[in-house]
């Protein structure tokens, strides 16, 4: 009986998705705002990656909200998982196999470098603070797999996280003081396609990269700590 109801519900959902997908004219220009971003995005913001110019310039305030949501989720997880006691685990930690250990030591700096590259070049190439931060956090997952017993320093991750959030808000407030509204792009735009261009966008994306990277790796750290 339950299986029949489940299949019926699944069928209804599949029918709904299929009907709505056939109604969407894929590829057809639907809104004027998309055309506007494609045409005016590069001259107005200086960022050649139009996704970045939308995320940090046209819709910068929404991104601040997104970063805040991630921050609140991390705080909530920390409140649930660490209940005051930080007792040392008496179980002896088994070392990882030689191949995993060597591979992790070899790959960790490369992945870290790649994540940093992604968020520093967020205004030029695909990617940005969120993607770079997630890549950095996956490097720390590798450390927890390969080099057991190693921990990221809690103070360091908290510092990086708070500084990232602080820089985002301060840059926005400076814009409010200088240009009249929050997160205005008050620095010179520079030549598009060069590393030092697009005004405040690289600064904010570097801050977001540090913030997201430290938040996601501290989530992993808390979960692993709870397990051992």
């Amino acid at each position, binding site marked *: 009986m339950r299986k029949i109801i489940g299949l019926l519900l699944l069928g209804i959902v599949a029918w709904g998705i299929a009907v709505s997908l056939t109604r969407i004219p894929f590829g057809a220009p639907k809104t004027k705002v998309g055309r506007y971003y494609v045409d005016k995005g590069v001259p107005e913001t200086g960022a050649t990656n139009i996704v970045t110019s939308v995320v940090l310039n046209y819709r910068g305030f929404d991104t601040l909200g997104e970063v805040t949501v991630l921050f609140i989720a991390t705080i909530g997880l920390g409140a649930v998982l660490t209940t005051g006691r930080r007792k040392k685990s008496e179980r002896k930690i088994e070392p990882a196999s030689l191949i995993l250990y060597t591979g992790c030591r070899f790959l960790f700096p490369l992945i870290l470098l790649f994540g940093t590259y*992604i968020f520093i070049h967020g205004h030029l190439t695909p990617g940005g603070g969120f993607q770079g931060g*997630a890549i950095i956090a996956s490097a720390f*997952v590798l450390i927890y797999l390969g080099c057991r017993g190693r921990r990221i320093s809690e103070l360091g991750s908290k510092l990086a996280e708070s500084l990232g959030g602080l820089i985002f808000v301060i840059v926005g407030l400076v814009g409010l003081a200088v240009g009249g509204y929050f997160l205005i792009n008050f620095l010179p735009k520079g030549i598009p396609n060069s590393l030092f261009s697009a005004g405040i966008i690289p600064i904010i994306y570097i801050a977001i990269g540090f913030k997201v990277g430290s938040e996601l790796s501290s989530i992993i750290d808390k979960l692993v700590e709870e397990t051992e």
Partner: protein
Amino acid sequence: MIPIVAFLLIILMLIAAIAASIFKDLINAVIAAALVSLIAAILFYLLQAPDVAMAEAAIGAALVTAVFVVAIRRTKRFEE
């Protein structure tokens, strides 16, 4: 060329998704779910959305898998 590759990838993705839901060993199910994310990332790349592909590959295939594996170590490995 690309439509054929995308078609094959979608078939593989469907197989991985069904496998993730029927495996009794939850570690295998998590790996199958990671495969779904990885193929989704490749499809995003083929659809010219590299930003989303990057986020999907890093979060869906790496971090979510790690969180699930840690959760399985805390609870039970096999589904009854």
